[in-house]
Every structure is written in structure tokens, then in C-alpha cells.
């Protein structure tokens, strides 16, 4: 914890002028931002504004046409996704597809099996099953409840989202990128997930949240970047950003 506090304010992720086109579609155009350790950054924007593409650019699933991404000072532009993940960048996917046939807790075996976890735990894996069950408890699966053992494919939506969060925890990531984690959740489910994210922040993690649920996002985010047609049109405190006319227009769709 001490170490984490010492390092706050240090730039952990630096995105510089990244662009990506798909055929004629300019999905992301010259987007830049710096992210400091311990920040919770929201990325918002209308449908198709390039949010998911930006996540893919940071995590290596899409290679940028130009621009660079640095993590902890290291240039990771164009790296393979698994190498980037090993540095401690975890992400969730907008379309959640769990390892459907595996019981919920066995889904965590995959991130727990990664070389990163092995290195961090001193070169041996140990009993991953019990670690996995502990992690599920951390994200709100009741201990020894039947959901833990249920095939992930049959889990209710709220549990699936928590399972995705647990995967990020399993990787012991420092930077966690959540692509529309809140979508499709009821108010009650949200109320149980928000504290988990707040706890991550207390632990010194850095989080990027792509969100359409602005009200819920603004309660926890200290900063938002607004994308529109691939451009970052605003970057700042939620309250200030939402006052801007161009942001309002982007959201209302008026020209």
C-alpha cells in the first residue's frame, strides 16, 4: 500500500496521437491522454465513437496506424495482447463470453495460469482452485454457494460481470480497463458492483471505465475523456466536461 501511495501521480499510461481506420471508417483519430496511477478515468461517447477500438489499441488487440502507447515508460505500441497483459494490464470485453462449460471458479484458472501470476507468486502456482474461490468471494460470490460451481454459461448477468472483474483481479493487474461493465445491470446489481471498484481504487489500482451509464460513472470517476467520431473532444472533471456545448451536442446528436 505504501509503495502504491509513493508512486501516485506518476504517469502509468501514456497514449500519444493514436489513430486507427478500418477501411474508410476512421474509428480513432489522433487521441492522446496521460493516465496517472490511482486515477479512475471514464471514457464516454456515443455509439460507434471509437471507445472499444481505443481499448483494443491500448491492449494490443488492434495495432494503431500511427501514434504510440507507453505503459510505465515502456513503449508497448504494436505488442501482442498477451505480452501487454503480462505487464499488468487487464481488460474486460464488451461482449462477455465466459468459458461457458467450465464452472465459474474454474474460469479463473486461465488468468491464474499466466506467467505473470507465476512470477509474482515466486515461481510456483500452488493450488489454483482455492485461490480462484477466494477471488470469487472478493467479487461477491457467496462462499461455498452453488453459483461458484455452476457452469459459467448459465450464470446470471450480474455474476458474469463479477466473474470478469475477478479475472482482472486474478491477473493481479495494476491497470484495469472495463468496457461497459455496468451495461445491462439492475440498480441492485450495480449497488453490489460499485463497492468492488471502489475497493480497487483504495488498493491503489488504476482503472479505465468505458461507460454509457453516465450517472453511475460520474459518482466514482474523477476524470472523463469524451470521444466523438473517433476524436477526443473533451478531457476533464465530469461536472465541467458535461457543461460543454460540444459534449452536449455529441450526446444529443444535434449539429
Amino acid at each position, binding site marked *: 500500500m505504501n509503495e502504491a501511495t509513493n508512486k501516485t501521480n506518476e504517469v502509468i499510461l501514456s497514449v500519444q496521437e493514436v489513430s486507427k481506420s478500418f477501411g474508410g471508417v476512421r474509428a480513432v483519430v489522433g487521441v492522446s491522454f496521460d493516465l496517472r496511477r490511482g486515477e479512475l478515468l471514464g471514457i464516454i461517447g456515443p455509439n460507434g465513437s471509437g471507445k472499444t477500438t481505443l481499448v483494443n489499441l491500448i491492449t494490443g488487440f488492434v495495432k494503431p496506424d500511427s501514434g504510440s502507447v507507453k505503459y510505465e515508460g515502456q513503449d508497448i505500441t504494436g505488442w501482442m495482447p498477451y505480452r501487454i497483459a503480462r505487464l499488468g494490464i487487464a481488460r474486460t*470485453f464488451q461482449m462477455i463470453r465466459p468459458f*461457458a462449460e467450465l464452472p465459474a471458479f474454474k474460469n479463473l484458472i486461465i488468468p491464474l495460469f499466466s506467467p505473470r501470476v507465476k512470477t509474482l507468486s515466486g515461481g510456483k502456482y500452488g493450488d489454483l482452485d482455492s485461490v480462484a474461490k477466494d477471488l470469487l468471494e472478493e467479487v461477491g460470490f457467496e462462499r461455498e454457494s452453488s453459483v461458484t460451481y455452476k457452469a459459467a454459461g448459465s450464470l446470471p448477468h450480474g455474476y458474469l460481470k463479477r466473474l470478469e472483474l475477478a479475472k482482472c483481479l486474478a491477473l493481479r493487474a495494476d491497470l484495469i480497463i472495463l468496457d461497459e461493465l455496468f451495461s445491462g445491470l439492475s440498480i441492485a446489481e450495480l449497488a453490489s458492483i460499485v463497492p468492488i471498484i471502489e475497493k480497487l481504487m483504495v488498493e491503489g489500482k488504476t482503472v479505465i471505465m468505458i461507460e454509457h451509464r453516465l450517472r453511475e460513472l460520474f459518482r466514482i470517476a474523477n476524470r472523463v475523456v469524451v470521444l466523438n467520431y473517433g476524436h477526443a473532444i473533451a478531457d476533464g472533471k465530469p461536472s465541467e466536461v458535461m457543461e460543454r456545448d460540444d459534449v452536449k451536442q455529441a450526446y444529443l446528436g444535434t449539429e
Partner: protein
Amino acid sequence: MKQRRKERIDRGTKARSDDIFALTSYREMLYVAVPPVLPVIALLVMPLILPPYWQKVLLQTTIFALLAISWDFLVSVGMVSLGQALFFGMGAYVAGCLDHYAGLPIWLTIPLATVFGGALCTVLLLPVLRLRGVYFSMVTLVLPLMLERIIEATGMLGGTEGLTGIKPFGNSWVEMYVVIIVLLIALFGFRRLVTTDYGLVLKAIKDNDRSVMSAGINIYWMKAQALFISGSVGSFCGAYITHVYMFVGMPDFALDYSILPLASAVVGGMGTFAGSVMGAFILVPLSEALRNVGGLRIVLYAMSLVVFIVLLPEGIFHYIQRKYQQFERWVEVEG
């Protein structure tokens, strides 16, 4: 009004839990032990009672069962191969060359061919590991045919004649039991492997490779390892058959070695390995039995394949397993 209805009950023992089950009586112990133990005993006894011709069929069957297992394993990692013949032929040629050119003894050629054959196949397929689905399948289908033509065109490694005079096993009991033991090891080894953490990760690649990558796992390295494992099993088969027939040649890359294992796994039930073995033990002897029929052999064979797949699309093994774990009875219900 009273009506009769069929009721289906799951047996209590081992019910649905692979992890924890308590055995409370001899009957339950038998219930759990019989399915794996009985076929093993049958397999070990068969060579002692079969006539010589059917012993040869048993040997063939065992080889195809092994190939089917190696195919099933690759599929479980998301690689649908149409070219087990590549693995088979590679092992056959490596063993043949080690015997013919280097004069190595049989107890060296087979293990060496198993490892190097597997490695060669992996290296050959490395460039296409990134291809998914049908694109990967196409390449595996074409590669053995291509190697066959290269050997034909260049005349190397014996060309169209092949290499003859390869050392035989010398003892037919050793010959028979080597392959049976290897099959049993492979069967139980693979069944065990897929339940380990390593095996789970391999299977997860098939489910969702992006999710596996974002967990920091190099899926291409994992797939290469799976290819090596599967390739080695296939290569063992080729190397073994080379010594049985004392010959290696272009037929070792034949399409049969690609298609029959696939058919066995599908008919028997994919993803269980036991199904692959079961499928091979039905299809290969069936194909032999149909030899007497003459011209219509292929037609009958194809028809029986279709019948199996239409009647039991889940595979014979899954069907039997389900039936074994349930029993049905008629009950009276108020209508």
C-alpha cells in the same frame, strides 16, 4: 384417470460431480470401476484369443484409435485437423530413414521418430497457427498430399518405391502389446491431461482465444505445444506401422489416415478420448468385415457412418455414458 409415464432417474453415485463422491458400498464401487476396467481387461485379453487375421485387424484398430485420440485432442484446443496423415507419414518416414540410412535399432527409431516427427509437424504448421477454423483445416489437408507429391517428383527417400527391408519387431507378442499399452497410456493420459490446469487453458483457447490472450497467455505457444503432443502421438503410429510392415512409402501419407480417425472420433463421441477409441473399434473392424462384400464396400461403409451420425449425433460414448448414469422406469401418475 391413471396414466403411465416414463420416469428417468439419475443414479446417485458420482452424480454429476467429478470432484467429490463418496463410495459407500461394494455395489457403488463396482458401478464406478466397471466402465474403465472392463474394456482395459478386454483389450489386454483380446490378442490371446483372436485368430491371427483378426489380430492384425486389432493392431490396425489400435493404431486408428490412437490417431483418433490425437485428432480429438487437437479439436479440443480448437484446431480441426484434416491431416492426421501428416503426423502419421512424418513419423513413418523419420523411423524409416533412421532405420534405413542410420541403421538404428527399433527401440531407438520409434521413440526418436515419435519426438522428431512431432517436432517436424509442429514446425511445418507453425506458420498457420494463426489461421482459424477452416483455413487451418485446409492447410492440414493439403500438406500430406503435397509431401507425397514432392517425394514422388524428386524421388528422394526411396521415391515411389519407398524404403523396404525395415527391421521388424521380431516378436509378435511384443509387437501387439507395445501398441496396446501405448493406447492405454494415451487414453488415460489424455483424459487426465484435459482436467489439469494446463488442459483447462488449452481448452479455453477453443472457447475464447481473446479472453485467454488477455489473461497474459501466449496462445500460439500453447497451440504449438498441443500440436507437438498430437503430432507425436500420430508420429508414433507411423513409426510403429513402418516397423510392422517393414516398409515406408508414399501410402503413409494417404487420406485414410486423415479421414478414418476423424470419423472414429465423431462416431464415438468427441471430447472424451474414450469415444475415439470406441469409434475406432467399431469402424475399423466394420471396414474389414465389409471386405468380403466387394464393390459395394465403400457404399455400405458410408451408409453405416451416416446411420451412426444421424441416430447418435452426440456419439456412442456419450449415449452409453448417459444411459449408464440413468435408469428409466414406468410410473403411474394421476392424469
